[in-house]
């Protein structure tokens, strides 16, 4: 793909800033333990099981907040997701570690996710198309997959 600018790594937002923006505060902290069946779904969504088995999340009313990581090209992208009533309310890239492809942190990209939910057929797909960024294919795919996983996790803690 074509260009993205070099020198795009950086810490863009702390977790507490993300929670303040997304939940209006820290919300109620909780943890969710991934079962073997959850990891099987993670493999379908991410192509691999999620690292670790215990995930921290935050809750406020119908909203849940998740901070997840997935490898872009060679390094993990730390991304925060706010899910509200089964739909993506907000996506923010907290840390981007690659030298190229950092456009995925910009709101012109992340706002595409707002309102997306999990489709039913096929399962665990996003209900809307997310257009990519030229030169950032792997980073875009990482965020697409993480958003699906965040929606799945939200549905699990609300069961």
């Amino acid at each position: 793909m074509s260009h993205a600018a070099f020198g795009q790594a950086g810490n863009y937002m702390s977790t507490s800033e993300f929670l303040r923006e997304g939940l209006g505060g820290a919300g109620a902290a909780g943890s969710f333990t991934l079962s073997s069946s959850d990891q099987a779904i993670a493999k379908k969504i991410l192509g691999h099981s999620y690292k670790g088995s215990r995930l921290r999340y935050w809750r406020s009313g119908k909203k849940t907040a998740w901070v997840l990581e997935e490898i872009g090209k060679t390094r993990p992208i730390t991304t925060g997701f706010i899910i509200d009533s089964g739909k993506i309310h907000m996506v923010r890239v907290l840390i981007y570690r690659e030298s190229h492809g950092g456009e995925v942190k910009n709101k012109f990209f992340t706002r595409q996710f707002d309102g997306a939910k999990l489709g039913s057929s096929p399962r665990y797909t996003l209900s809307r198309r997310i257009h990519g960024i030229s030169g950032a294919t792997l980073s875009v795919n990482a965020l697409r997959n993480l958003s699906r996983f965040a929606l799945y996790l939200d549905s699990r803690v609300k069961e």
Partner: protein
Amino acid sequence: MKSVSFGRLRPGLFGLVALFIASLTPVSEAQTNAEILAEMGKMKARIAELEAKLAATQQTANEAEEKATAATEAVQTVATEAIQSAKSLEDLEGTLPPGEIPLAEEGWWNRTSLGGYGEMHLTLGDDEQIDFHRYVLFINHQFNDFIRFVSEIELEHSIAGDGKNGEIELEQAYVELDLGNGLAARGGMFLVPVGIINEYHEPPTFFGTERNFIEREIIPSTWWEGGVGVNKRFDNGLALDLSVHSGLDVPTSGSNAYRIRSGRQKVSEASASDWATTLNVEYNGIPGIGVGASAQYQSDISQTTSSESNSAWFTEAHVDIQRGNWGLRSVYGRWDISGASPALLGLATQHGFYVEPSYTFTTGLGDLGFFARWSKLDSESLDSDIYDVGLNFWPHERVVLKADYTKIQEAEDDDFINFGIGYQF
């Protein structure tokens, strides 16, 4: 365990006891059996009435206790959440998100990442050949939050050495500094930021087994130089890059005279008497649409090969669109070289473009994409129209299988079929 308040039951119990005592009183001789039976009937009725009252009282007590328990639990939950909430926010202040290890607590290996890509090609035509064209490793290291090292080392054609087809090349090795506010600087050896393929050439990212001719002859990918650069990116998707770096040193005689691709020095004891300056502008503010342009000037691209000064301007523009299943890539590049010799050879202007529409969709086994490409090239090595059609199949987003047909239309047409397998990680 549920309990019943004794106070609430006291009147009913007293009544029962009184009746029981009364029942033990000796029966008057004057009482007839009928009177005794009537008295016993009254007592039974009274007992049933008291039992009903007792049951009702117990139910009320149970309900009251359940409500009290629920209220207590609710208060405890709210209190716990409030404490957790306060703690989580407090804990998060000044700490790193999950996965981020404080520098002081980690080894260098946590800051070093490994990646790579590779591709093998099979060509069928007049010259049938199989070649593991590229085996590449990326090794990057993060010194701290704002200084990192990026490198790429490549083995071409699988074997290197005297008399061998291949070579080992260091294609990137630079240090990059984030200066804040979207500004970054780098120094070392880096890919010249022009066109599409030169910076992004991992096999799963492009159509066609071989790279297109425009970005081989006009933009001599892979093209790297040594120097310094600054980059500014804006939140609206606009990015500017200005680099000052080593330049070309093209041959001026022989079969490759003024061939751009032959002028790459690869930063190997390279002549540095005439530097080049490259400006690149990119806009990615609309998801799925990338557009960009570059310009480069070098005061003499025949630094050591000719006494004649051959200043050169290079300009290019490109577009890379992927909206839905449809894709479109196009690049136009042009060299304008001054001096009598290139003019005499008809190589003062070398230019070309390609247009590449594609259609990609998901199958049960992976993504499948079809493409067609028309290239028009006027360069030292080729002056022709080139047509490609083919497909890419991605069983995984980082693995690709390719098949395509290429026809080069010139005085003597040439055509061949390519098959390729590529990966990146």
